[in-house]
């Protein structure tokens, strides 16, 4: 079996003490830096990239890959414990993860994210190893019209995701789209809604908005609740740190579905990874027997998006490695690092540098295993954070947020923007509006617009371009289907009432 030989070659290199050490350093640093509010994988890799210049190419890339997973995992940790998500993916994980933490079940939630990440990564790695080149070709069939239709379906899906009123969900998506318009328009280069401020020229920082809407709003809400605040006190016995049999059983299906969705969407540059977590969550809510549990600490609500996020993180290496085209800013950084080390990405990398390619694949797996080993003992320590009195914790959180926001672009404006969004987020909590759909609107808004305008340029203004291309049409049908399953039951009841 050639495949086994290849993997053996990869593991041989990845398991050498030196490589293993760099992988471990990457994962550990990534986790600890990723725990800081607002510092996601991109910032972490950007900060530590120069360190890797002094390493041999394979070790350097493996360490960077380790940083990537570590930072993602660290982001989930703060999202669950403190409702401080730093990435689009952890916003979704926090929806049910943070309620679990408030119920004293932070342990199972954290262990579950580790287990699920590992499982999803294992599957996605096999997919990369076996199918990378054909999947990359499939990704190329996504042109501007396909992206537009996919994102339209994704935005509708995000509106479905909310608990409660659909109108509120759609309103939040639209508010997100509007916020996404702020800044320079890529197609014409003209600044919009910047009020002449240079600080808004690049649009509102996505991380700034997340930290404000979720992190600061959470702090404000807890302060406002005062003594009525749900407080978690008391000791957690060691056995309560691990998920129960029921947790495992409940999340098995969710993990599988999330992995599938994530593996597919991860192939699509830009929109894929962020959308996959939202899509996975929406799917779980739809297939669940009792959707009302979601948002209140349903374990499936953690398992599915976490699986999707990790599978997507893995498969997003496919376009990067086999086409040499980076999927997102983080991938671009990894690609740049590869090129600086003289590794030219492309399909030939599998044959020209087999040791590098298979060692990287193997290190994906080992990196995830290291995360598992590293984080299980750490879970106990993270949980201790929850018993810190709030009068100490809140000022600390606000301080860390301020430092994180300032360090993004070294702009004090970002700190104030986050504070402003904190107030807005608190208002949303009072109005019972979920902020998660807003974020997807904010991320996808500029992409939706660009792809729409490009499609129109390509078709010379003919809207049929969206209906005559099979992939695009499929997504539009999916969009109609999403509307139908949401509006359907209500309309049916009304029709029945009238008939009776």
């Amino acid at each position: 079996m050639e495949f086994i030989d290849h993997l053996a070659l990869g593991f041989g290199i990845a398991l050498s003490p030196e490589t293993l050490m760099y992988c471990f350093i990457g994962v550990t640093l990534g986790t600890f830096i990723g725990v800081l509010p607002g510092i996601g994988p991109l910032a972490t890799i950007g900060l530590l990239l120069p360190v890797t210049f002094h390493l041999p190419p394979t070790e350097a890339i493996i360490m960077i890959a380790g940083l990537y997973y570590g930072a993602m995992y660290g982001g989930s940790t703060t999202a669950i414990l403190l409702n401080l998500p730093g990435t689009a993916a952890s916003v979704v994980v926090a929806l049910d993860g943070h309620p679990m933490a408030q119920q004293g079940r932070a342990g199972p939630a954290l262990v579950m994210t580790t287990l699920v990440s590992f499982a999803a990564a294992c599957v996605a790695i096999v997919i990369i190893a076996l199918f990378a080149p054909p999947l990359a070709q499939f990704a190329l069939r996504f042109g501007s019209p396909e992206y537009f239709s996919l994102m339209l379906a994704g935005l509708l899906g995000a509106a479905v995701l909310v608990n409660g009123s659909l109108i509120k969900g759609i309103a939040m998506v639209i508010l997100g789209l509007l916020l996404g318009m702020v800044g320079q328009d890529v197609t014409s280069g003209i600044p919009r809604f910047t009020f002449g401020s240079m600080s808004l020229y690049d649009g509102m920082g996505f991380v700034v908005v997340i930290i404000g809407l979720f992190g600061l709003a959470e702090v404000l809400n807890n302060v406002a609740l005062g003594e009525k605040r749900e407080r978690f006190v008391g000791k957690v016995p060691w056995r309560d740190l691990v998920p129960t049999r029921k947790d495992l059983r409940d999340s098995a299906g969710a993990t599988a579905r999330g992995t599938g969705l994530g593996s597919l969407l991860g192939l699509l540059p830009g929109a894929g990874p962020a959308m996959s977590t939202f899509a996975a969550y929406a799917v779980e809510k739809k297939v669940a027997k009792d959707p009302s549990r979601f948002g209140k600490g349903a374990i499936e609500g953690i398992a599915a998006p976490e699986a999707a996020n990790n599978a997507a993180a893995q498969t997003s290496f496919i376009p990067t490695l086999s086409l040499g085209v980076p999927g997102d800013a983080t991938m671009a950084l990894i690609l740049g690092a590869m090129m600086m080390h003289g590794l030219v990405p492309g399909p030939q990398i599998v044959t020209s540098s087999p040791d590098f390619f298979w060692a990287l694949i193997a290190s994906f797996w080992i990196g995830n295993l290291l995360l598992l080993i590293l984080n299980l003992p750490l879970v106990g320590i993270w949980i201790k954070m929850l018993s810190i009195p709030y009068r100490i914790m809140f000022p600390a959180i606000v301080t860390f947020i301020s430092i994180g926001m300032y360090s993004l672009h070294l702009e004090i404006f970002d700190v104030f923007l986050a504070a402003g969004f904190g107030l807005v987020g608190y208002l949303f909590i009072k109005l019972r509006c979920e902020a998660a759909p807003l974020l997807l609107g904010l991320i996808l808004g500029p992409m939706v617009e660009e792809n729409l305008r490009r499609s129109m340029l390509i078709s010379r203004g003919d809207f049929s371009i969206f209906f005559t291309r099979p992939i695009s049409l499929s997504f539009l049908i999916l969009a109609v289907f999403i509307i139908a399953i949401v509006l359907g039951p209500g309309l049916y009841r009304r029709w029945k009432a009238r008939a009776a």
Partner: protein
Amino acid sequence: MPMLIKPLATLAAIPALSMMIATTAAADYPEREIRLIIPFGAGGSTDIVGRTAGQPLSDRLGQPFVYENRGGAGGTVGTRSASTANNNGYTLSVGSTSTHAVGYLVHDDVGYHPIDDFEPISLIAETPYVLVVHPDSDFHSVQDVIDHAQENPGDMNFGSAGAGSTTHLSALMFNDMADVDAVHIPYEGNAEATTAVLGREIDYLFGSFPAVYSAIQNEQLRALGVGTENRASQLPDVPTVEEAGVDGYLATLWLGIFAPAGTDDDIVAQLHGEIADMIENDEAVREALRDNGAEPVFSESPDDFATLIESEIERYREIVDNIDE
């Protein structure tokens, strides 16, 4: 500052004194890390070239470089912040045809002057814009593209890394000189535009060489012509666009290092010396730049670099004025 005070004879001692202070300050330079602003996103050609040259330069200066990617508006956002940065020698920036010529001309108010607000230090590299098509297409030469476009006016699509970007202008220049009528499809960056050729969403692209080089090597893209005066050393079989029949066509991206205006002359001279020596003599750097699709070049002096920028601004001003879409 000494220039302002010099005419005042009564204060003759002060310029001498301040120059002494300046010299001592420069003598210890650099004593801490240097921030290098890269006005484009990570992984793009400016980023790759900037970091490829930045790393060995940092080794030579004995201080780490902190790279700051500040993309947006064809590199003008980051360049604006570089122009107002502290001119103590600890903030440098990578500038290019895009930021110091094209972007300055295309955008209404970039908020900086490409020469007056900077101390140009030295060129580091030059890369051609490469006319690329999909390998399954019927286009095997520059002439094929021109013929097809002339027979079917307004039928072909060409891409760019954004409206008003250098990839856009180099294609407009081509269309104008070859008398071709095609539709412009802007993308978010070089990577996206390259993917669009791979997926056959656009027919042709004047791609930045570092961005398309690996795809050309993998035969996922077909290179028809390079925009430089001479053929690229990495692609000896690909003619220049001029050789292929478009008389006078020249489209290159040069990249160089800048300091904010008012940076100490001694620091500028020191940096220029190090960069010029490194680009001329360090084989590892030259090879690393070539591997990334960039030809190592340096300026004889900072003034030389300023003169080049001036002439480029004039050349592109004509094109921007002529081609008014």
